[in-house]
């Protein structure tokens, strides 16, 4: 918000860098400001458009765990708060379809289906890259079953579960239980349909199904229509029973109590990324503590080779997790995850302290996936002509950790190497200082008003 309001900062969101020309002190950066189909200067972010938009799509921010609309905001607190139309789904942009609902409900008149991409040229003395990271795709490790075993999720997915504004309002349910819950309305609908069908027969023959069936069974009523009716009655009873059973099951569902985090998923692994992703141990501990705060019955395991609580107050936090939240830290590299019949995952590992191979059944497995260079890092490295290291992060020298291989272009945060929040924040300030340093004396720096 400070950035959004800062008089000296021009925020170009939903934009991509296409070209960087020139040199230190005199860069020309070509930026494509992509069409949102919503006028930024008019949109007040009220959300009326998304409320009425008839096209539901998967919510990227909630990792597909919830639905968004074809006109959307990535997340509620984003800056700017302007909505954007996803043209891949919006009916107005799909051939042969008509809609226009958002334009109708937008009282600010901000919807503009004819908006075009804008190509801007920005002059800059220095450039700072903060292109971040993306998470390792856990599907690449088949033995952990992500994508195949429903109750194996990633740490970021758990983050959404634990969020009060997330898809489960802060409750941690097993995805299979959630699916069961979500299947209930559909099942009730079919039951309702079957019931309606019975009503038709009842009207036609002026008899309730309950009266009819014993007579039919006794062979007193014969004929094709009666047979159909009888079949319908049986179908309804089946469905009715199923609905009752599922309702009971859903009512008895509990949140996931036994959680296990698997560390170094895609990190410190010669098959994928050999490096350490730095933040995942603390992320797991934090999620474990929150899960336990939310559910005092929760038993959380964190299974990893080393627990890298390396930061100010981190070791103390890890110990607090053990003492107050009863986190059990298990030293091991997990070999495989299988599942029981009820879809509870089973973790197979060697407990290196006890020197035995163990299996641990839990309700939910959480994979702490690796930090990888974002696609933007690769793309920009190509566009700008910057060196990346063999991991794919921007190459820097340890004595000049913010400087890329090109003068006047600096990097901070996970685009340089995996790191946690305080380090990223500190580096961001450092990169700004480097920019100020190299520009001083060039006349490009001036006092803020």
């Amino acid at each position: 918000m400070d950035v959004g309001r800062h008089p000296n900062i021009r925020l170009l969101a939903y934009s991509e860098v296409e070209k960087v020309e020139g040199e230190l002190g005199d860069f020309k950066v070509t930026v494509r400001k992509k069409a949102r189909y919503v006028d930024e200067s008019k949109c007040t972010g009220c959300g009326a458009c998304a409320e009425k938009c008839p096209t539901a799509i998967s919510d990227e921010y909630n990792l597909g765990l919830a639905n968004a609309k074809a006109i959307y905001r990535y997340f509620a607190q984003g800056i700017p708060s302007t909505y954007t139309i996803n043209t891949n789904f919006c009916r107005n942009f799909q051939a042969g379809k008509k809609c226009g609902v958002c334009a109708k409900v937008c009282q600010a008149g901000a919807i503009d289906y004819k908006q075009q991409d804008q190509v801007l040229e920005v002059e800059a003395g220095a450039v700072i890259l903060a292109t971040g990271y993306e998470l390792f795709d856990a599907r690449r490790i088949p033995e952990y079953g992500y994508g195949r075993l429903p109750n194996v999720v990633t740490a970021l997915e758990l983050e959404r579960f634990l969020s009060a504004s997330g898809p489960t309002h802060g409750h941690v349910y097993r995805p299979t239980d959630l699916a069961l819950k979500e299947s209930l309305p559909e099942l009730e609908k079919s039951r309702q349909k079957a019931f309606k069908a019975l009503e038709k027969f009842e009207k036609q023959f002026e008899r309730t199904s309950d009266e009819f069936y014993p007579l039919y069974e006794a062979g007193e009523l014969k004929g094709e229509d009666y047979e159909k009716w009888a079949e319908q009655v049986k179908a309804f009873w089946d469905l009715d029973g199923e609905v009752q059973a599922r309702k009971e099951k859903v009512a008895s569902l509990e949140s996931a109590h036994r959680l296990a985090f698997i560390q170094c998923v895609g990190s410190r692994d010669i098959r994928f990324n050999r490096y350490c992703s730095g933040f995942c141990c603390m992320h797991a501990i934090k999620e474990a503590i929150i899960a336990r705060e939310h559910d005092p019955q929760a038993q959380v395991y964190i299974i990893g080779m080393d627990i890298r609580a390396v930061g100010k107050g981190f070791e103390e936090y890890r110990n607090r997790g053990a003492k107050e939240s009863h986190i059990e830290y298990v030293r091991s590299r997990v070999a495989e995850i299988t599942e029981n019949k009820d879809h509870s995952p089973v973790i197979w590992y060697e407990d290196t302290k006890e020197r035995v191979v163990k299996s641990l059944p839990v309700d939910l497995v959480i994979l702490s996936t690796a930090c990888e260079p974002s696609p933007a890092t690769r793309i920009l490295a190509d566009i700008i002509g910057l060196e990346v290291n063999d991991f794919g992060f921007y190459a820097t020298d340890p004595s000049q950790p913010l400087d890329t291989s090109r003068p006047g272009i600096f990097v901070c945060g996970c685009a340089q190497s995996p790191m946690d929040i305080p380090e990223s924040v500190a580096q961001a300030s450092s990169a700004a200082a480097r920019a100020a340093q190299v520009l001083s004396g060039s006349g490009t720096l001036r006092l803020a008003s």
Partner: protein
Amino acid sequence: MSGHAMKKGNADAQETRIGVFICHCGSNIAGYLDCEAVTKYAMTLPGVVYAKNNLYTCSEAGIGEIKSAIAEHKLNRVVVASCSPRTHMPLFKSACGEAGLNPYLFEMVNIRDQCSWVHMQEREEATGKAMDLVRMGVAKATFLEPQEDIESSLVRRAVVIGGGMAGLSAAEALGDMGMEVILVEREPRLGGLLRRINRIAPRGGSAAELIEERISRVQSRDNIKICLESEVTAVGGYIGNYEVTVRDRAGQESQETVGCIVVATGGVPLVPEGLFGYNGRNVITQIELEERLKSGPLDATRVVMIQCAGARSAERPYCSRICCLTAVKNAIYIKEQNPEADVHILYRDIQMYGAENERLLWESRGMGVRYDVYNVERPPVVKMDVVEFYQPLMGEVYDLPYDLVVLSTPVVAREDAPAISQLMRIPIDQNNFFLEAHAKLRPLDFATDGIFLCGSARYPATVGEARAQGLGAASRAGTVLFKDKLVTSALVATINPETCVGCQGCLMVCPYGAIRFDTQRGVCEVNTILCKGCGNCASTCPSQSVVLKGFSPKQLLSQIRVMLS
């Protein structure tokens, strides 16, 4: 804010003329309560001459309506009932200012976050509550007074305390930004801990060369004054105008007036007296090993390193972050010098966080450095010529013969950290490291404005981290020093010297050190630059001598009164 050109507006006019704007926030408010009814109700309140509901008060149209209503209806107070003041107050205030009304004559009422959003199922009650809130806002607005933003001058100079990697980087960056810098170093030479280090991880460059380069850059700048063998002995003043007393080797004291202070006092490696048979001869610390490696070939071929010596213990619960890296770096160096050497590292968790550090770990393994985990309940025992240790993976006890045992001890806070903490009124944590304003979002700031933090004085840092933090602290200081003056909100506390009894109750509760006791007059005084307007003092004062502007008893009591009426 255009408040600088502030006229008193028409606030002096006898008649109170309040304009009330009720925001629908699309359907966020209007969807759950009756905005029109609230608007009509507002019209009936005393002092209100104009009330209007609009779809979005924050939109260009909404802001335009406020401005034109101020002119048209000669409004001398404006109340907006909408969302959170946290997000939108500055916008509305500046709109008032632009229309010629003193921005402090604006009052905001939150009928969204605290009303429509929490009573989504109770339209009638929500409407009633919104009316209550608006009535209270109007009552307070009646007693609002015009205020002027507080402006203070600013000295474009900075003191950097500590001449290690962090301090040098901060000084150099500030110097490059055109600021005058006074770099205070206690030792006779710049360079700090790096002076004792052999090579730099992860690439093995020479520490001496690295630090010399930084030192020569700082020395070459004529806007950086270097005070060696000097200490800061007193700090007074506040952001923009700190008075720093520096005492040199001869005991001469000089006063420096600066806008900002950077604390880069570093840390020291623990000397592990009584731990693992430490003797400084064949059982030494990593820093002692560094010094030996620097001075020539190592006369030991069997080296055992023990991690967490004196760290992650009851006495020192923290992990010192850099010792695993140091051990691995030195192990590699020893193997490079003498591939026949045996280096064995006993660890608890090998903390090679991040990309380049982990690379060193596997590279060292490839070079033949041995690693074994030890159990903290059964730590290694250093005997005459073997280290006896329990290997939990095998469940067996091994004897490792050694020529040299190297203890990886943590970096600890300097002994004088508590004294500096008191001197500058900046906090330290339980390990005596300086405590930043926010662990995640403000790692290089202190809660006290104008003082910044970097390097191992904050928490053990590698060379690269110390450098980044030093630059970062300079950047943070730059956000202050690049301004031509400091402008702060007028909503601060004032103390009436006529009624103040000098009990100093306010002084005790002020978290910002903004209150001073004037011993001559026997009364307390507020430093308006330091005051953040929290109101602790005002609510504590037994004689009601302290008044927080914008929240005076008259204003607050009027709100309460109309609420209860």
